[in-house]
């Protein structure tokens, strides 16, 4: 029997096939994206970026990028109907 590749049992092959092709989920994902009104919160929490340039220049440039990025991301999410409507306060 050595040197011969054992033929996989049909059922195991079937399970492999299922894992390869995957299975459909019953429901599409529901809206869950809640855009933030403060796009630079995480950035500010890290403190000044260590780039040895003027802090104000770096902050201004990065803030501009973060604000645009959250806008673009929100637009993409809205187009896909994934934006959740804000119902109230955080953690409530």
């Amino acid at each position, binding site marked *: 029997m050595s040197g011969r590749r054992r033929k996989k049992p049909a059922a195991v092959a079937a399970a492999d096939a299922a894992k390869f092709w995957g299975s459909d989920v019953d429901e599409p994902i529901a809206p869950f994206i809640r855009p933030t009104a403060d796009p630079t919160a995480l950035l500010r929490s890290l403190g000044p970026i260590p780039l040895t340039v003027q802090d104000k220049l770096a902050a201004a440039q990065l803030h501009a990028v973060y604000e645009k990025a*959250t806008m673009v991301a929100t637009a993409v999410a809205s187009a896909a109907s994934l934006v959740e409507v804000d119902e109230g306060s955080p953690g409530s």
Partner: protein
Amino acid sequence: MVENEAAGEAAPGDLAALDGDRLRWLRVAQALLRDTEDALEEAGELPEPALRAQVGADLDAELRLLSAAVTRAAVAAGLGTLWQAPPPSRAAANGAASEAGTTDVAAVPAGPPRLQGSWVDGGLVLWAGGPGAKPLSAEEVVALAVSIDSTLDTGGWTRRKPVIVPGGEQAEAWAVPLDRILGWLVAVASTPPGEVVAPSLRWLGEVAAWAVELSALGRAVPILRRSTGSGPTARCRVRWTPALVDKGRLEAAAARRPGAAVITAPAEDAVVTTRSVLGSVVDTLFRHAASLARKIPEPPATTTAAEVGEAILAGLAGERFDAAERVAGMVEHRLNRWARPVTADVGPPLLVRLAEPDSEGVWLLSVHVPGAGAGGGEVPVEVAMGTSRGEERRAVEVAYGRLERLVPLVSRPGRARRGEVALSDTEAWELLSEVGPSLEAAGFSVQVPRLQRRSPSPVLRLFTKEGGSPQVGANQLVDVRWSVLIGDLELGAADIARLAAQAKPLVRTGGRWVALERADLAEAAAALAERSKVTQMTGGAVLREALGLEGSGPSGGIRVDGEGWAADLLREAGAFPPPPVDPPEAFRGTLRSYQAEALGWLTFLDRAGLGGCLALDMGLGKTATVLARILSTADQGPTLAVVPQAVLTNWAAEANRFTPRLRVAIHHGAARSDDVVRMAAHHDLVVTTFGTAIRDIDSLASVKWDRIVVDEAQNIKNPASETAKSLRRLPGRSRLALTGTPVENGLGDLWAILDFTNPGLVGARDAFVAGLSGKTLGGQGAEAALRALNGLLVFRRTKSEPEIGAELPDKIDELERCAMTAEQVGLYQAVLDKLVADPPTGDTKVRNGRVLAAITALKQICDHPAAYTHDDRPLAGRSGKLSRLEQVADAVRAAGEKLLIFTHFASWGERLADHLSDRYDEPVGCYHGGLARGARDKMIADWKARQGGGILVLSLKAGGTGLNLTEASHVVLYDRWWNPAVEDQARDRAWRIGQERTVVSRRFVCPGTIDERVEEVVAGKRRIADLVLPASSSLGDLSAEQLRVALGLRPDQLVAAEDGSTDEEAAA
């Protein structure tokens, strides 16, 4: 060989080989059996029941074969019955094969090829295939992708080498730039499963959506990526990296990854794939955002850390640059260290909690570490820092440091312990409204009381309690108490003062905290102060307060609660429209739903002992509605209806049509009864005109009427007029005013009407106008004021309301009976006398011609004396039809709608147009065939372009065809002709395709005249004035007597105007 033997497929040579080494045969068979048992156990964990069942069935069958094979091998090896094979029913114990049905179910259901997505070398590849399906061509792949979204831009897609699917087939594939397809990919995740999108593509869509979520929260950091070579220069670029990626979510997503998603690298770790997709999408989004931002210049060199820093800021959109290797490495390291608090695997986020204020109004902010306590519970951050060690402690400190940067007051000196601080109301509000959301975006968990962003307007609350007053109704005296309501929170004067003194007044209402506007508090305090000393009020005063007619109130209005006449009334009137009421059984006809509601309102008024104003738009059926109520209460006493002369016969006709059981008397004209009391005692409804009512006021006022109804009540808008003063003398249990235009000239008109219907109840005129004027601000006009009273003293519905419009037919055809004036009657008789005295002679044509000429003359007289005589005297007050037309035109213009008036007589039409122009001080044209084409076109264009209301007179011949006049929603056919089709065409200038409103078409006829004969002929009756004409007869064949009968006046149907003033002059 062993498998073949087990399956019964071994060749003789194989059997000989197995027999030659029986122990080995047995060991291999046993190993196969163990493998199969393991596989069977694993199959029991498969998530899909159908797959679990079919795999279990296959494995069970295999188990049986192998068990038998082991037995045979054992027997062959001489072990015989010493060997015990596991019972073949082991599958039942696993629970997997117990679900097996037959064994003929396919392992993975085959289906059509679907659109697949694979992640290859950090990019997206699209191809199409499926289990048992032939892969699609590249063009078909594109077609499938576009079928999901027809706007998909496939520019930039490039063909790549085919991917190899299970079974060895090749599937043509496309490499797709992520920035061209990101929106489409994310949308795929939110579409229901179908026949196009395969699980691999959906999985990629879900991960892409997660990356979009991170980006929308600003959870990404710029990192430097450099590719090192052998030289001193490194090739660098900024790579945006996802931050705060939840480990559990990452692993769960990875576990769902289908193999097709990594078709070219099936062994790749699923977590690695998931991170790669996340990172690429975030990087794509942020680079795109950076490309939109203002670009700063690149440094001339990149040999120092500062220069590399500048190059990074200039290259945030991902542009590559070269930098000195050593310096780039140093900057890369610094950036990684700076970003590590949010890019390394982190535990659960710190919890920031704001507790509701204690008894002293102190808000406590505290910070906790979830999972750090015994049993996985939370502990205060100070405790966590004290008890944890090493990396765990460092992680908490780093996270706390991030928190301090965002909320510096957490480190305020004087606090009891680290991570606990007392907040003021203002600080608490900032946390609730602004800081909290920022903390969540930065990856902290936040627990705060629920917040209501919009401050509710304060409402002044008037609580009434019956104090044993003997009076009832509006005169009932009740005890009252005042307070202010904000949401569900009731505040007294002291509470208001306390809140107004706070910098940020916060209150809890409806389970949420809300910050009050100080201006609102000041307004509420002033309203309360104005009234707080009042402890008793009459029912009428309570009602006036509720309607906003007494003094100033807060923006939220006034609410009355408690007991008493006014409170009960307001509660019942609160729900508008009121519940509908069916008309009495004897009512002939069907009320529309809004009429049934109006009837319900009339019933409510009677129950409450109130009068009111029924303000249904013209054409909505006020008369029929009121007749239904009169019929219901006929046993309570007679009703007196005071109406314009122009509609006197209409009232009689409608009563005959809808309420034939009502005993109706017309009190008008020289032959009217002298004994009004006796007349009233023998009739349910007495209809009279304004003029007659003034003349006979003494006798009418001596009757105990159950109800007084005033139609077209705008005639009493001047309380100083003789009409208004006279009608106020009429006694009645209830007074009802009917009008389609209750606020024709302002709120003062409405006051006059309501003060008539409920004397003294609505207070002084100035206070009424001032109180309701506030509601007319904002361009809403008088309608807003009417709505404020709707359901209580007023019932207002208009054709412009969608639910009303939906119920109305496309067109309403009404017959208006317009009484002739004495001048008209005299002229009419004179013409007829002349015709009868000198009957037509000659041949048929001549005779017919004379009769037709006489008919034409009579019709002109019915229109207006001047239409026949062509005199130059003023037109007003000389024709019943003209009087009625003026009333209709007044109402149409007041409603801002447009009116078409058709007449057969062009010269009369011109005269009429001039008269209406003078009356309304605006141009009213007459469209007729004598005008040049250009003049006609301009007339139509000007009329169409006029904003709001507008009147146009048209001759029936010229204006009856070809024109589209759908701007008009009212049509008057001023005079009739024999051919109804011609009139229908006229009406259809307005009622046609493109018309969105109900068209009200009115045919004017003078009762007892040639107009009615025409009506009869048009209605299909060949009997004219009791004559039966042979089909071949013509009018010219009639004898003098027949002519008199055919064309003469019918005195019993004539309603002549009285000498003296018109309705309008009486109302002035």
